[in-house]
C-alpha cells in the first residue's frame, strides 16, 4: 500500500526536496556520566531513501538517532534539517519508533486514533488503512499491550506513519523479534521508502542492512567511521573496524 501523504500547506510550499543534504549534523559531541558517547559526529543525509546506521553495541547509534530527532540536545555541535535547528518544529514532521514500543493502554485502533487526533484530524478510514498496512486489521479492537512483541512493534510503526512523517527514525525496531515479524516490518519500511519517506534505521544486524540500505553510516566508539553507499560499503569497507564488523569478528 502506498501511504497517501497529506496534502497540506507544508506539501504545497515544499513541492520538491531541496537540493543537497536535508539533514546535517555538525560536530556533535555528547558526554553522559563522564563517558564521551558521541565524539565529533559530522553527517550529511540526503533525506530520501533508507540510511542504515550500523555499528557494534555501545557505538552510540541510538543516542545519535535521538540527537538527530531533537530529543536529546548535544553538548556541542548542532543538527539542522532543511537549514533549521532540530527541535519541536522539525520533530513535528518526523516520527520515531523506539526499540521497545511505548504503546498507550488502550486498543490498537485507539493508539492510532490518538495520534491522528493529536495532529488535528479524526479519520477512521485512514486509521483502518494504517492498521491493514501493518497487518493488524484483525486486531484493531484488541488491547495494544496484549499484542505479541512483533504486533506491538508493527502498531508502533503504523502509529509513526499516522503522523505522515517526511523522515522516519527507527531504533532497532526488529531487535529480538521473530523472523516473520522482522520480514513484515521490513516490508512496511520498504513501502515507506517507495512512498518518498526518508528512513534512518539503526541496526546491528548486517543482513538487515544489506537487505534495506541505500547508504550506510558506520558508527564506532561515538564517531562516524564511514558513510558510503551501501554497495561500496559492503564491497570495500574502508576502515578496519568496519571490515572486522562485516566479517563477524567481535568489535568493541
Amino acid at each position, binding site marked *: 500500500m502506498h501511504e497517501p501523504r497529506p496534502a497540506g500547506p507544508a506539501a504545497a510550499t515544499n513541492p520538491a526536496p531541496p537540493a543537497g543534504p536535508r539533514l546535517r549534523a555538525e560536530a556533535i559531541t555528547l558526554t553522559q556520566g563522564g563517558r564521551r558517547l558521541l565524539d565529533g559526529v559530522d553527517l550529511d543525509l540526503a533525506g530520501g531513501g533508507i540510511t542504515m546506521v550500523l555499528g557494534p553495541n555501545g557505538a552510540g547509534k541510538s543516542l545519535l538517532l*535521538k540527537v538527530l*530527532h531533537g*530529543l536529546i540536545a548535544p553538548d556541542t555541535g548542532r543538527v539542522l534539517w532543511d537549514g533549521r535547528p532540530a527541535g*519541536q518544529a522539525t*520533530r*513535528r514532521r518526523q*516520527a*520515531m519508533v*523506539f526499540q521497545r514500543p*511505548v504503546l*498507550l*493502554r*488502550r*486498543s490498537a485502533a485507539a493508539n492510532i486514533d*490518538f*495520534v491522528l487526533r*493529536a495532529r488535528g484530524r479524526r479519520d477512521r478510514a485512514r486509521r483502518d488503512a494504517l492498521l491493514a498496512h501493518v497487518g493488524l486489521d484483525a486486531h484493531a479492537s484488541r*488491547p*495494544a*499491550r*496484549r499484542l505479541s512483541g512483533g504486533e506491538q512493534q508493527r502498531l508502533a510503526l503504523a502509529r509513526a506513519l499516522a*503522523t505522515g512523517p517526511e523522515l522516519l527514525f527507527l531504533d532497532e525496531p526488529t531487535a529480538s523479534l521473530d523472523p516473520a515479524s522482522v520480514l513484515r516490518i521490513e516490508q512496511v519500511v520498504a513501502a515507506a521508502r517507495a512512498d518518498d519517506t526518508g528512513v534512518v534505521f539503526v541496526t546491528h544486524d548486517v543482513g538487515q542492512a544489506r537487505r534495506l540500505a541505500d547508504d550506510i553510516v558506520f558508527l564506532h566508539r561515538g564517531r562516524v567511521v564511514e558513510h558510503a553507499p551501501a554497495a561500496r560499503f559492503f564491497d570495500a569497507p574502508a576502515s578496519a573496524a568496519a571490515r572486522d564488523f562485516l566479517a563477524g569478528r567481535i568489535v568493541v
Partner: protein
Amino acid sequence: MQDFADAFARAVTLVISGDADLIEIVALSLRVSLTATLLACALGLPIGALLAIARFPGRGAVTVVINALMGLPPVVVGLVVYLHLSRAGPLGFLGLLYTPAAMIIAQTVLITPIVAALSRQVLEDLHAEYAEQFRSLCLSRRAAVGALLWDGRYSLLTVALAGFGRAVAEVGAVMVVGGNIDHLTRVMTTAIALETSRGELALALALGIVLMVIALGVNALVHGVHQSAARRAHA
C-alpha cells in the same frame, strides 16, 4: 462479646426493616462523600498531573507539602472551614454553615491533598514511561496530561476510592461544619458519635457495621467495573 452479637443483630434488623431515618442518613453520607470525592478529583488530579510532568522551581517543596497535607486532622479542616463559613467569617454571607454543602466543602478540603499526592505518584511513574514518546510526537502538555489521566484511569480510580474512604469515614470535620442536625446534616459517622454519647453502644456499633457494608459495596462496585473494563481494553 455480648455487645458485638447485639450489634450485629441490630445492624441486620436495621437494614431489613428499611428504617426511613437510616436510609436518609445513608443517602446523605453517600451524597456528601461522593460529591466531595468528585470535586477532590476535579481539583486534585490536575494538580497531581502538573506535579508529575511539569518542572518548576519549588516543585519539590510543593510535593512535600501536599504529601504532608494527607495527614490533615479532620477536625482541624472542620475548624478552618467553620471559620470561613461562619456568619462572622469571610464567606458567611453564603449561608452555607450547617448545610450539606458545608460538609462537602470540608471533605473536599480534607481529601484533595490525598488525591493530588497519590495521583502525582501514579502519573509520575506513567510519565517516566511515556515522556520520550510524547516528545517525539510533539504532544501539547494538555494532550499529554489527558493521555496520562486516561491511561492511568484504573490506578486513579483506586486513588479516588482512597479519598472516598477517608471522606465517608471521617467525623471531625462534618460534625463541626454540619452540626449533626437531624434530617439535615446527620450522616453515618455523626450518628454513630451521637449514639455513642447516648450510651447506645450496640446501636452505634450497628451503624458502624452498616457503614462498613456501604463502603464495601462502593468498593466492590468499582472493582467490578474495573475488572470488566480491564478485560475489554487494558493490558
